[in-house]
């Protein structure tokens, strides 16, 4: 199959429809407005519903209602909109209702800006975002193709674990065009037994809590542990003999990969990890790193360094007997391959102090 040129937004919309999404609720917000426009045109043709919602706060509830009936539901928004959605995503965990959110970050707080790339919502998406004990699977793809592939399997994962899936991308991945292959349309899925159909059944797993709290808590822990065990995804290279490993996700992960390849060609013992899921965090990748590793370099595009503690924790869990240093590079601007190399050089020569 030949590759086609697709704008990110359009590709995700088409992919969602092919993956079986039959209810979309959205509210216009750059950079995902075009996605909504495409869905509004094409989803009704596929027999689905596109609801132009009154605000973002109500969207997850519309999705929860639809997903409770077994429909693959989808929404998308940008940073200020997803903040409004967190309440509904937290409430979805009450009934363990699965749905998918494509979150295109802006850089910065409040309305944010659209001029650059940003990774400023890492902390919130990884932590879950709302109140209560829950997590969402968070994918952080680095290319339009990867995002399409992730979105294509999102509903299957969401329904398997009864959990929301968040696709966590930067602004660029929505606006940019890339040559991609779109997957074929899936046949219709069978609705799970637990979903609403009008007949009385125990829909609320919390009801079990009233009868047998320990069983409920155990079931919840098993479910989340299964996600942590099975759904860690990452891309990594040159870990076996690496003195230093650079960790970055999203598009910066691509830049780091290129820089590491260049540095390897120049004889440097450096490796890279690009987390593809940021929750669950790819601990298994850190376990594969050489036990003689001298340090990890965490690189991200935000002002406060949101991922550095996850890198430090994973480094610690992989090397429990000693303290592996973590050097954090973070600033609210894109960095180039040259800057990656320069940062590595400063770390290697002891000119950069370890933060964690």
């Amino acid at each position, binding site marked *: 199959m030949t590759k086609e040129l697709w704008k990110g937004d359009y590709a995700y919309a088409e992919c969602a429809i092919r993956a079986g999404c039959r209810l979309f609720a959205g509210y216009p917000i750059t950079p995902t407005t075009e996605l909504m426009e495409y869905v509004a045109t094409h989803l009704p043709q596929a027999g689905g519903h596109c609801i132009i919602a009154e605000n973002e706060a109500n969207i997850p509830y519309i999705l929860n209602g639809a997903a409770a009936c077994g429909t693959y539901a989808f929404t998308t928004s940008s940073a200020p909109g997803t903040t409004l959605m967190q309440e509904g995503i937290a409430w979805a965990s009450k009934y363990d209702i699965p749905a998918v959110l494509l979150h295109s970050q802006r850089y910065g707080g409040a309305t944010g800006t*659209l001029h650059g790339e940003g990774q400023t919502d890492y902390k919130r998406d990884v932590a879950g975002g709302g109140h209560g004990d829950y997590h969402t699977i968070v994918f952080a793809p680095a290319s339009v193709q990867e995002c399409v592939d992730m979105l294509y399997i999102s509903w299957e994962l969401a329904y398997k674990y009864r959990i929301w899936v968040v696709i966590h991308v930067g602004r660029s991945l929505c606006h*940019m065009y890339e040559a991609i292959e779109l997957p074929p349309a899936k046949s219709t899925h069978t609705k799970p037994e637990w979903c609403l159909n009008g007949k009385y059944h125990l829909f609320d797993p919390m009801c079990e809590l009233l009868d047998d709290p320990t069983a409920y808590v155990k079931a919840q822990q098993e479910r989340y542990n299964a996600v942590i065990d099975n759904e860690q995804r990452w891309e990594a290279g040159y870990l076996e003999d690496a003195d230093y490993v650079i960790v970055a996700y999203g598009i910066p992960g691509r830049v780091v990969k290129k820089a590491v390849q260049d540095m390897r060609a120049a004889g440097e013992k450096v490796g890279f990890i690009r987390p593809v899921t940021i929750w669950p965090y790819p601990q298994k990748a850190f376990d594969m790193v050489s036990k003689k590793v001298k340090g990890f370099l965490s690189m991200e595009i935000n002002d406060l360094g949101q991922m550095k503690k996850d890198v430090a924790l994973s480094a610690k869990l992989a090397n429990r007997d000693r303290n592996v240093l973590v050097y954090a590079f973070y600033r609210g601007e894109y960095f180039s391959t040259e800057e990656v190399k320069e940062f590595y050089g400063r770390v290697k020569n002891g000119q950069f102090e370890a933060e964690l």
Partner: protein
Amino acid sequence: MIKEILFSGFGGQGIVTGALCMAHICIQDGMDVTNMPQYGAEQRGGAASSDTKFVAPPGEIYDPRMEHPDVLIALTEHALAHHAKVLKKDAIVLFNTDMGTYDPSKYPNLKIYGVPCLAIGDSVGTSKSANFVMMGLAMKLTGWFTRDFCVEQIEGYFRQEHREKLIDVNIRAFDAGYNYTF
């Protein structure tokens, strides 16, 4: 070797369309492409730029955003002043002399060509196709794609976008640019 062409100017000048059509031409030639538009909140009149990267044979383009363009199509003074520092050494710059002037001595490492692209566009139909005038000239100067292949793909691009009425005028503009002599 990754090639990179940057269209820059105001929103409404065809910056995004020009770069996207460029990406279309590349992908039809079997290359790997990324296109990254950047624009402000204004629908018309704000600073806009759009960067197309392509590589043959297909391979991974690591960084999809603008790095160091080989060609800059600058439709405003601001576009040149803003992007000059990131251009490759000896990069080709096609500057719109209908809307401003430039001081060649400030840019010793660039090959800057002043082109009255609005006037050229106007002479073949509309000044709005200045972006295609520049694209035609860029293809001539770089030799990346043949004239016939580009013309065929420009037609295909506008058909795919259901904007058939724009085909003729833009091909005339492309040719006018391609055949422009200094």
